């Protein structure tokens, strides 16, 4: 790691690269933004923006369960809870007659309320507010390793399941006729989204994590005409807003997660101008 820091400081001789925590955050941004960009393409295509939002909010209950169990780092409790919630929502959605929005709304607000109730006992909620806005600058090397592992897992999932996922997003009967097991693909994707959102929530923050997932893909849809462009443009927008957001947050002294999202919003607005030309 030490060699990496020195190499980076030589290569990027700026004020902000003098701090190891900034270089760690830089690495984290280079891992998290592609991760979110890739998943975001299909979250938007499958109209799952509200679903991923619910998973983000449910992290509060995951943290609360971890605290009740006396865990120092509640990540495992958060993961378990969000995956159970993801499977629960897709099952109810598959069986139920009511609108998915309503079902997700019910699950999500219950999870948020439950989390706040448990965490705010004896007025102690303030110490968890870090989870709300995220703290990218406190990421450690071992946590960067976890993110790397998750990125590799997602890339593997993507190369195997992408075509099936795309067919399901187009029309589920059509997907079935091409031999796709629609339920399995839908649940697998929900679990992957839950996994990625939960692992990154500590760094990005509950309040804005969904924007990071949705904004780059939403902007790319305005410009792209095929799947290849869609992926490339989404990646580009995510990484550019990640880097510029991180650097701006250093000079402005602002929360890095929110600054990154703000940069992505600016790029989304710019993409609207490209829209009329391509369609």
């Amino acid at each position, binding site marked *: 790691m030490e060699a990496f820091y020195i190499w980076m400081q030589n290569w990027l001789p700026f004020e902000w690269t003098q701090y190891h925590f900034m270089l760690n955050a830089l690495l984290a941004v280079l891992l998290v933004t592609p991760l979110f960009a890739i998943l975001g393409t299909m979250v938007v295509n499958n109209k799952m923006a509200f679903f991923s939002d619910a998973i983000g909010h449910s992290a509060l209950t995951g943290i609360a369960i971890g605290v009740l169990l006396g865990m120092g780092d509640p990540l495992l409790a958060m993961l378990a809870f969000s995956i159970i919630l993801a499977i629960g929502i897709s099952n109810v959605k598959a069986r139920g007659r009511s609108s998915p929005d309503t079902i997700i709304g019910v699950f999500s607000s219950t999870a948020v309320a439950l989390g706040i109730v448990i965490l705010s006992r004896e007025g102690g909620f303030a110490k968890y507010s870090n989870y709300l806005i995220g703290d990218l600058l406190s990421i450690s090397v071992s946590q960067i390793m976890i993110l790397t592992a998750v990125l590799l897992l997602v890339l593997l999932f993507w190369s195997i399941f992408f075509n099936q996922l795309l067919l399901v*997003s*187009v029309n589920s*009967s*059509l997907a079935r006729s091409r031999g796709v097991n629609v339920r399995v693909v839908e649940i697998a994707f929900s679990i992957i989204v839950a996994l990625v959102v939960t692992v990154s929530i500590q760094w990005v923050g509950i309040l804005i994590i969904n924007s990071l997932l949705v904004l780059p893909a939403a902007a790319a*849809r305005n410009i*792209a*005409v*095929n*799947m*290849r462009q869609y992926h490339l443009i989404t990646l580009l927008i995510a990484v550019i807003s990640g880097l510029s957001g991180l650097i701006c947050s250093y000079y402005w002294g602002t929360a890095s997660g929110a600054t990154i999202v703000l940069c992505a919003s600016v790029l989304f607005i710019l993409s609207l101008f490209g829209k009329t030309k391509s369609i």
Partner: protein
Amino acid sequence: MAYPNGCEKQGNEFCGLCCTKVEHFGVKFGSKEILHDVNLHIHCGELTAVIGPNGAGKSTLLKAILGELKHSGNLNYLDAADQNTGVPVIGYVPQHLDFDLSSPLSVMDLFAAGNSRLPAFAAHSRSLRQKAMESLSRVQAEHLHDQRLGNLSGGELQRVLLALALTPIPDLLLLDEPVSGVDQPGMELFYEMVSDLRRRYDLSIILVSHDLPLMARFADRIVYLDQTVKSSGTPAQVFNDPYVTGVFGRIAVPALPKGQIIDLKDGV
């Protein structure tokens, strides 16, 4: 064709010997019975039109055949040598593609997703491009290969979906109200194409439709479905069935001298 004795392998342009059997199909949603004891025999080279009132279970039947819905009963595919070859290869064209018009999905991406191991966001291989162009040429849609799906007209979209359903050539082709919402010329073009492809590739086709006069023109067999098969046979037979005329009234069957309308209620 996936089976050794399938029509294509017989080298017989019009074999008519392959048969898809739907036996005793039933579908329940909870305690509500949607379909019961549906039996159909579909021969290759034949276009079978499924008609019936709204809520009769027509789309449900197709989804059950696809395996998307749980059902009782069996689906059997018998090849030209009359050997049971099990599950047929099924092509499907949906009712109305419920997709977001802003989705950046090109016609070639759709073919890649349905036919290739490489993910659709990767570069499309030469063999896939060739295969897709060949399929698109069957429905006179080669020129659409790089278009975004959202830029196509309703008729063009359905032709592209038909081309996809015919790659590979299926044992059974299911069309679920394929041209609802398409203008009249687009509709006729589509049915003429389906009719032509049926002869050329000896396809077994099940088509759900509300366009009764068009069905009288293009279908070989008609099945009147209302929870179960209420009437079936040639268009003339079914459209003369008092049960069917009681629901739909009279329908012109063009097998008879042109323009003649049979008043079914008067028994011709």
